[in-house]
């Protein structure tokens, strides 16, 4: 490793060995939020990186214990504000499974359509912000341009652009109209050439490849140890996707590929996300083609009470496995609610993976983990 070479050379030259602490954050352009990382540095090499989360902790879990099941629903879209749909999906799925609620097929299809659109928009934000971390400013604006189209579509059905609270226990809050469906079809047709353009302009850029290939190696074993999921573990060669391994909703009926790259470096994680956008487009296309008619909300009791028990439910959010564990004592208010957020686990491998890296490489690694800080702190 480069650090060892430098240290040996320093020792041979009799140079005094000194380290310093660099406080990256809580306000720093590369952390994209209020994350603080205490870096112990030897020159530009990182000896130890200690993430200090908690600056925007909002006690979502405690809030869950203070309100009934449906009152917690809006909270779920504020944990990871970039993939709000999937987070709400996990919560409604948990309640539906525990209470044995029926979900009409049309609602299931629409859930997948909106979730996947949300995933694309989340990946687009990551794409722009990641390139920004690498010093390329322009892709951000292009990505946001595309994302705008998704936000407009979702706004037309859910009424909000970021913190959608669209899913309800047993279905959806309202049905979509023809404008949304045709708009989504148009978007799929529009997005494919855009992804091709990104591939040509950004992915194949020599500077980008030099900066990402072989940088920030993370293997599947390390991912397992820290519980890292999503594109991070798939970029390390492990085909772990909740939509495949613990299927929910109508995912088993859709034809999609789980992109896996074995290299485990930043480039692999980058490629996984770029491929995922394409797969999400495919899923949206198929779900729209198969979309059945019918109601979007099933029969749901006025006040939901889960039978006493311990429930667990996971979905594949844009950043990885998002899971909720809820303990019910039979009352209308959960006894305990635990959120397992992917960003938190993905961040925890940063300390080990960044050891001995240079500062810009470590920031590339951090960018490739696609952290959303409220998701870490929740």
């Amino acid at each position, binding site marked *: 490793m*480069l650090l060892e070479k430098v240290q040996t050379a320093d020792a041979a030259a009799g140079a005094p060995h000194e380290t310093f602490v660099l406080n990256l954050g809580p306000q720093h*352009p590369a952390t994209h939020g209020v994350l603080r990382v205490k870096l112990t540095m030897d020159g530009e090499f990182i000896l130890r990186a200690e993430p200090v989360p908690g600056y925007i902790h909002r006690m979502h879990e405690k809030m869950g214990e203070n309100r009934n099941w449906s009152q917690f629903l809006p909270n779920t879209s504020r944990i990871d504000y970039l993939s709000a749909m999937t987070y709400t999906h996990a919560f409604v799925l948990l309640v539906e499974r525990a209470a044995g609620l029926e979900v009409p097929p049309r609602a299931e299809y629409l859930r997948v359509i909106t979730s996947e659109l949300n995933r694309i928009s989340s990946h687009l934000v990551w794409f722009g912000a990641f390139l920004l971390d*690498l*010093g390329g400013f*322009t892709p951000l604006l292009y990505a946001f341009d595309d994302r705008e189209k998704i936000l407009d579509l979702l706004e037309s059905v859910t009424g909000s652009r970021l913190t959608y609270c669209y899913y309800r226990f047993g279905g959806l809050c309202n049905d979509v109209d023809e404008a949304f469906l045709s708009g989504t079809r148009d978007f799929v047709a529009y997005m494919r050439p855009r992804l091709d353009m990104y591939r040509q302009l950004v992915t194949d850029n020599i*500077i980008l490849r*030099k*900066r990402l290939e072989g940088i920030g190696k993370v293997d599947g074993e390390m991912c397992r140890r820290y519980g890292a999921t999503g594109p991070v573990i798939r970029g390390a060669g492990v085909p772990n996707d909740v939509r495949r391994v613990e299927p929910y909703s109508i995912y088993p009926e859709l034809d999609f590929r789980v992109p896996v790259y074995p290299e485990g470096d930043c480039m692999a994680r980058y490629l996984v996300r770029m491929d995922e956008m394409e797969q999400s487009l495919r899923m949206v296309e198929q779900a729209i083609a198969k979309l059945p008619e019918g109601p979007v909300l099933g029969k749901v009791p006025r006040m939901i009470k889960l039978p006493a028990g311990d429930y667990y439910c996971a979905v594949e959010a844009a950043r990885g496995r998002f899971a909720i564990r809820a303990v019910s004592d039979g009352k209308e208010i959960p006894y305990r609610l635990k959120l397992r957020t992917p960003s938190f686990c993905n961040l925890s491998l940063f300390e080990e993976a960044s050891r001995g890296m240079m500062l810009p*490489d470590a920031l590339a690694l951090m960018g490739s983990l696609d952290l959303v800080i409220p998701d870490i702190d929740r």
Partner: protein
Amino acid sequence: MTLPEPFRLLAYLAGVMAFVGLNAAYLVWVERKGAARFQRRPGPTEVGPAGLLQPLADAAKLLSKQLLVPPDADRTLFRLAPVMVMAPALMCLATIPFGQALGARSLDLGLVMVFAFGSINVMAIMLGGWASRNKYAIISAARIVSQNVAYEIPMMLVVITLLMVTGTTNLQEIVEGQAGGFWRWNVFDLVANPLMPVTFVIYFICMLAETNRAPFDMAEAESELVAGAFTEYAGMGFGVFFMAEYANILVGCSLGAILFLGGWQSPFGVFSGVGWFLLKLYALVFTVVWVRWTFPRTQFYGLLNLSWKILIPVSLGILVLTSVMLKLF
């Protein structure tokens, strides 16, 4: 019309300063507008028609800000650094011939002087970073020194190659030697050196690195080092660094235009004049802006590897090739 000597110098001093000031201000506007066009947005539009008064508004804002000096900083060096970064850029422009009879001084050692003063720029930014007593600034200071040491060498090799072709360090004479159509420009002088276009590209890359422009903006690297060496600077202290960056781009691109693209010479051999020089200058400046908004930043060791492992061997090779060619023909 020729003014008597002291007045002529004063006029040129005022002229060069106005030129640099105006250019620095309006290159910021060009950069912002250009970046906006690359990014499908309109850019500044509010202040004045097409945002043309935006630089003035920015300057007024920067001037009205307090000049903060961090308590731990070395006050003298901290204040001195912005001046030291701006003054050499102005000095360099004194030797640049804009037109046949338009130049402050036609020095026999013009080219040498430009590079001598150009190197001070690095030291000034390094001092600014060092004096700030800020960790990001010190990392940036260390980076900029190693970066500039690495890129000064291929740049010098390229310039030596060119000197062997032109046989003079007087910028005026270098331009005059390229008179008569674009095939006489040094960049197309394939007899002396069949790799002349490559030499020009090397010069351009080194120039980008020397002026700390993307994709080599290691010193500023806003997503890594916040604002690098300029982190602690507020108000006009930062403003001067900012202007100096554009002044240095101006010097680098002027030299590029003079050394390789025939300065004020017209590509057709007739109607030579200052307009051609400005056209070439701004074409190069636009390329600099274009590159910045197109490429991501390089990694630091990638940057050093590019210099030590590729640019220096290639430019050394070109140097040898040129001397052989000149001996043979």
